[in-house]
Every structure is written in C-alpha cells, then in structure tokens.
C-alpha cells in the first residue's frame, strides 16, 4: 500500500488561503483546501494540502503573490 506524502501550506488569514486557492487553480495545480489538522493547530483555520512533491513549484507560485506562514509535512 503506497501512501501519498502530503504537505500543508499554512496562512495567517482565511482570505490569504482563498487567494492562494484561486492562484493555484489558475496555475492548474493539484491541491485541496482542508481545515487545519488538529495536531497542527486548534485554530478553526483552513490550509492547503498538496502532494509533497509539488512543494517547490507551489512555493514558487505563491511567493511574492500571497503571504503564507509555513509549508510543512502534514504528518508528524
């Protein structure tokens, strides 16, 4: 059973997450908007989950366009 490794992009505000969502959609990137997992934060926030292999390309798209606080692995 192969398990996909996911990373999450965390934002300081929901509106930044939504802006990033629009941008990634425009760029046809595969991602999923999900609630911030409880083991990362108890805040009622949303984050963007991506396949870890896409980290570099997604970071490039977002940098300079949308402020984000962190890209980190989903599990650990």
């Amino acid at each position: 059973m192969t398990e996909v490794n996911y990373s999450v992009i965390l934002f300081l505000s929901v509106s930044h997450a939504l802006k990033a969502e629009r941008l990634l959609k425009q760029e046809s990137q595969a991602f999923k908007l999900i609630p911030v997992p409880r083991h990362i934060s108890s805040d009622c926030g949303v984050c963007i989950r991506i396949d870890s292999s896409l980290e570099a390309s997604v970071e490039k798209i977002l940098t300079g366009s949308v402020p984000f606080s962190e890209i980190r692995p989903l599990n650990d």
Partner: protein
Amino acid sequence: MAETVNAAGLPCPEPVIRTRKALQQHDAVDVIVDNETALENVKRLAEKEGCIIDITSQSDGTWILSLTKKGVAKEVKGKAENTPSAQGQTVVVISEDRMGRGNDELGYVLIRGFIHTLLELDRLPDTLIFYNTGVKLAADDSEVIEDLKKMESLGIELLICGTCINYFKITEKISTGIVSNMFDIASKMTGADKLVMP
C-alpha cells in the same frame, strides 16, 4: 474456521475495506487491528453488517475482532443474540453546496472542510443525503469527490436527489453514490436516530 484479516499496520481505511471484502466471502472473520480508530471503524462496519462481535485485547497491544454473521451464529452457537448495542443511524443532510448563511464564498470553504472532516471522526455517519445545490458536491468535478468516494468504499450510503441533478443538468456527472428519490430520502430522514444538517 474463521478467515483471518491481519490489518495491523495498515493505514485507514484499509482495515475496513479488507474486513468488508472478507465478510462478503466468509461467514466468520477474525480481524487483527493495532489501533483504536481501526478497532472502532471495523466494529462499526461489523455492526452494520449485522455481525456478532467478540473483541479480545492482546498483550502486544493489538485486538482481535471475531466477527460472525448473525444467521450463522444462531445455528452454530444456538444461543441468544449478543447484539451489539444498536447505536442508531446517523444521517447527514447536505442541502446546499455551502455551510451556514451570510457569505457564500466562506460557506463553500466550510462545507468542503465539513465533508473532509467527517472521514476523520471516530464514529462515521451511516448515510449522507444530497439535495438542492448540495448535489453539486457529488458531481465528478466536485472538489470533495475524492472524500465521497472514500466514504462509499467504507460502506457509507450516499443518496443523491435525482430531481435535483436533473434540474441542474448534471446527471451525467454523477458516478458516485446512489441516485435516489423523495420516498427514499424522506424515509431515511424520518427514520434516522440522528439527523445532522450542517
């Protein structure tokens, strides 16, 4: 002789999927799990399948769930039903493609988060019903379709309002769940022990 499913070390939802497969082919199945989430999920599946469940906790931190289909158990054991406590049917109604009123953009974020999170709960719902704009979430190009497919593989029933997909002209985009009618929807809703409307 019971079939054994060793689900220790398998990521969710594999234990449930393998148990379900084994139960389709065998009347008695022993399932080994190594975590409480898997234990609960397999237990729930077995309850839904109408099995008698006997759980043994092992010294190495694993559990063995001995599942026996009820009709068979009566013949074999000939004793009163050790019925698992009927926990009641939980039905979730997705009546819109958003959660809450006031801001649609935010509501769309919330409903996607809600559906994603349902799969992480210890106690999964039994049925999801989609009607009105809620049916758009069950279309093939929906952003939560992967979550819904996973639910279906776990045995969660997805009922999609046929009138609604016809109205929105998305009938050909529905390949997950069961296209359903008002009779089924109304009887599921009125028969539910718990009706959740996000």
